């Protein structure tokens, strides 16, 4: 078990290094730079600025310096926001993105499990058809369509909830998080319902469930204690990809609801060639995805006695 975790971490290190390297050189090869203005600045000033950020060095030197900084836990200064480090910028945006992501994940797992199980237990009943129809629609409609439509109907026409942004004084208040969280969770609810329905149908047909029923266990006990435990396994192995999808989805959600999260910072930084911020966000997201995948795999092993990692 411990050996398995160590091995996964050992594989993760070169993976992240490759990501850093590719992202670093991709940004530097590009035409244009962070200090391009509408009007070209005098060459001497330009040289001074470049020197201040160490960008007058040969590119391999810059690369090594960057890696050395990373090893010390220093992501470097932002090239666009004066007096701000990349860590500051991420520190501002990450809580917003993480809150929305965690809430969406919880919502998706809870609702998806219930929907899927109910559909499976009432197979070919109206409630089953409703869940299947919902899942089909939910997978097809992307968040960037659902988001604006929800903001328009519930936010603007009905006026029940604010349609976007955060109150700068109050921060993340529930009323401003509801719509983004639902929008982000919707496709995942659809996928998880589908997964749960399929695996639950398979499980309740198996022999051990019939045995449990035959020995007189009540229906809820059979479902909760016996069926759910193994039916949930495909869902657990989906958690890794799901978290990746949520991280990606947050980019659009933050744009639609104008939330000051990390996804929006990433797009803006990329557009403005703020190299260090882009790198910081990519490293953070890559590490997060690798970590969440590892957790999902460990959870899978913990829940499934057939799987042993060693």
């Amino acid at each position, binding site marked *: 078990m411990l050996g398995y975790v160590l091995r996964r971490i050992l594989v993760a290190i070169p993976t992240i290094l490759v990501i850093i390297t590719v992202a670093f050189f991709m940004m530097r090869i590009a035409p244009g730079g962070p200090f391009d203005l509408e009007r070209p600045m005098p060459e001497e000033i330009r040289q001074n600025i470049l020197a201040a950020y160490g960008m007058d060095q040969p590119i391999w030197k810059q690369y090594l310096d960057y890696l050395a900084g990373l090893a010390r836990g220093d992501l470097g200064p932002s090239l666009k926001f004066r007096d701000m480090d990349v860590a500051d910028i991420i520190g501002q945006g990450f809580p917003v993105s993480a809150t929305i992501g965690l809430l969406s994940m919880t919502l998706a797992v809870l609702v998806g499990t219930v929907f899927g199980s109910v559909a499976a237990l009432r197979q070919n009943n109206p409630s089953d058809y409703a869940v299947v129809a919902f899942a089909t629609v939910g997978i*097809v409609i*992307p968040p960037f369509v659902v988001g604006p439509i929800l903001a328009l109907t519930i936010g603007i026409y009905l006026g029940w909830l604010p349609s976007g942004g955060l109150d700068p004084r109050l921060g993340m208040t529930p009323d401003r998080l509801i719509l983004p969280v639902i929008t982000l969770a919707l496709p995942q609810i659809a996928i998880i319902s589908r997964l749960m329905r399929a695996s639950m149908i398979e499980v309740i047909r198996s022999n051990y469930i019939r045995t449990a029923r035959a020995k007189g266990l009540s229906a809820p006990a059979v479902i909760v204690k016996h069926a759910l435990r193994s039916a949930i396994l495909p869902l657990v192995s989906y958690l890794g990809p799901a978290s990746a999808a949520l991280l990606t989805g947050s*980019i*659009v959600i933050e*744009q639609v609801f104008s939330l000051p999260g990390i996804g929006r910072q990433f797009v803006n930084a990329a557009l403005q060639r703020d190299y260090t911020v882009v790198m910081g966000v990519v490293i953070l997201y890559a590490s997060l995805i690798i970590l969440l995948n590892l957790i999902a795999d460990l959870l899978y092993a913990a829940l499934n006695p057939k799987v042993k990692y060693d």
Partner: protein
Amino acid sequence: MSLISTPAEKSAMLEGAAVKGRSLWEDAQSRLLRNKAAVFSLVLLGVLVVLAFLGPLLWIHDSSHIYRDRVQLPPTFEHLHIFGTDAQGRDLFARTLVGLRMSLMVGVVATMVSLAIGVIWGATAGFVGGRLDQLMMRIVDVLYSLPFIFFVIILMVVFGRNIILIFVAIGAVEWLTMARIVRGQTISLKGMEFVEAARAAGVSQFSIIRRHIVPNVLGPVVVYVTLTIPVVILAESFLSFLGLGVQEPLTSLGNLISNGARDMEVAPWTLYFPALTMMVTLFCFNFIGDGLRDAIDPKDR
């Protein structure tokens, strides 16, 4: 070139004379035609494709013509602006058709890119096996865990929003699953009795690949291609929504939805019609894909 070349084909001909045999594909076709949702989607998609490619040529309004006095007109039959006009005074119906055409093209071309990479990668790994297989699939595993969309975003920003680059970038992201499917199929087919039998009967390597491997790999690949097209369309729309996809004067459904979302408070139809068109298109691909899967591999139902 003679019509009957291999012994296997000769014996198939002889059998065919006695009992009218049905091939895998004929079987699949009849099963597909019995699936109402799939057939309906197929017809609807056909209509959409014809509209997207012929519509802009025939429609009375040009997609980039600006009517200065008709800005943000709601849908109306006057002047035949049946979807209304956008914030610049352009006919939304014409723009939706042009956008649909772009989305379909991106979907098909990028999927072909992913198909080419995935099939070559997966077939090589599966056929050669051993250490090379281990290494190649390990690379796929690692790539799976990367935040690819970030690299696509960086690519778009860095190298400009070039349409060829969109095809390649999205195609290069979506090939991983294809490689896995093809590898799995190739490995399981390599060990099948009928392949062994063919080999024992002295059928050449090339003929085995042509007669036994390719037709059997083709099924899952066709299904996966149909299901990848909507994923690619979504990916392109995602980029366009962020303002990183295709550029004006070209447009795609994602672009139109993005503009519609911006103007939705005053002109909600500029959001509704492109969004609806995209949803219908994606539904069609999904139903056709599901139908094909059920038809080609009935075990999976």
